[in-house]
């Protein structure tokens, strides 16, 4: 398909595409995201040193099974995201859209699990500024505050990712995103994989270090 595009003539279809520039712009945005989450990881590590015992006892109250399931869900969604891009580039539009929809489905599944997880904690009276939480040891208050802020911020990123992939699926259907111009989908993929990487670190820090 690429070979049919005439390089010298393109009066009507000529569009200014800068594949390398578009991708570098996305990466630079991701660097700002690294430092954004990085600040919270810094807070986590500092307070973990100060309140080691409280952090360990609080972490043991989180559901490892649910956390592990959510890890597998996000890793699988990342694979489908990558496959949707390679499918599109091979000219398989239908399959690419299907893989994007699977990615969306897995993202929503992740958020549903998160909803049940948070509901269980809130039901126990553990939520930011709750009387039950404020009565606990200082380290536990900080642990659960960081838990809500960091997984909440991550969940917000998953939600935004799901919305953007939905737009990309529509773009792919309309061929705004095509095998010739797929950088929008690829940048969406970069964002989604970044969100996956953040969870890869959140999972051991909140669920496993007990």
């Amino acid at each position, binding site marked *: 398909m690429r070979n049919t595009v005439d*390089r010298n003539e393109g009066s009507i279809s000529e569009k200014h595409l800068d594949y390398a520039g578009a991708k570098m712009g996305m990466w630079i945005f991701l*660097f700002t995201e690294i430092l954004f989450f*990085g600040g919270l*990881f810094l807070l986590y*590590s*500092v307070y973990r040193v100060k309140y080691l015992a409280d952090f360990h006892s609080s972490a043991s109250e989180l559901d490892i099974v649910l956390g592990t399931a959510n890890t597998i869900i996000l890793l699988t969604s990342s694979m489908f995201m990558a496959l949707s891009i*390679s499918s599109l580039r091979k000219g398989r539009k239908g399959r690419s859209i299907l893989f994007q929809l699977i990615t969306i489905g897995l993202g929503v599944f992740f958020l549903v699990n998160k909803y049940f997880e948070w509901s269980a904690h809130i039901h126990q009276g553990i939520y930011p500024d709750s009387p039950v939480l404020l009565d606990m040891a200082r380290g536990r208050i900080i642990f659960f505050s960081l838990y809500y802020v960091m997984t909440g911020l991550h969940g917000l990123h998953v939600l935004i990712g799901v919305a953007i992939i939905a737009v990309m699926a529509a773009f792919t259907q309309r061929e705004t995103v095509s095998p010739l111009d797929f950088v929008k989908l690829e940048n969406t993929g970069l964002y989604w994989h970044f969100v996956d990487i953040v969870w890869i670190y959140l999972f051991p820090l909140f669920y496993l*270090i007990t």
Partner: protein
Amino acid sequence: MSEAIVPRHGLNSRPYLLVWIGLVALTAATVTVARLNLTAFAALISIGIATVKAGLVLIFFMHLKYEPLILKVMLGIALLALSLIILLTFSDVWYRWGAHVHP
């Protein structure tokens, strides 16, 4: 668009599946290690495994393997900045409030 602008790599599905299998295996490994209660090293091992997983996602899913050197250098600087910020603050805090104060 010329041939040179659009990359031709990463079209094969097989590597993505293999990387996914690796990522799931590492997740199983990190959960197992956490259950073993190796207290002193558990945290370091968990972070180590997470870093290997993040590396796999970066290199294969995010195609870092095929990116130009300039991008790798830029990412390296961003990660180095974050590591330094965490390491320096962490070492300072460890010295003040370390395990000997709060066992």
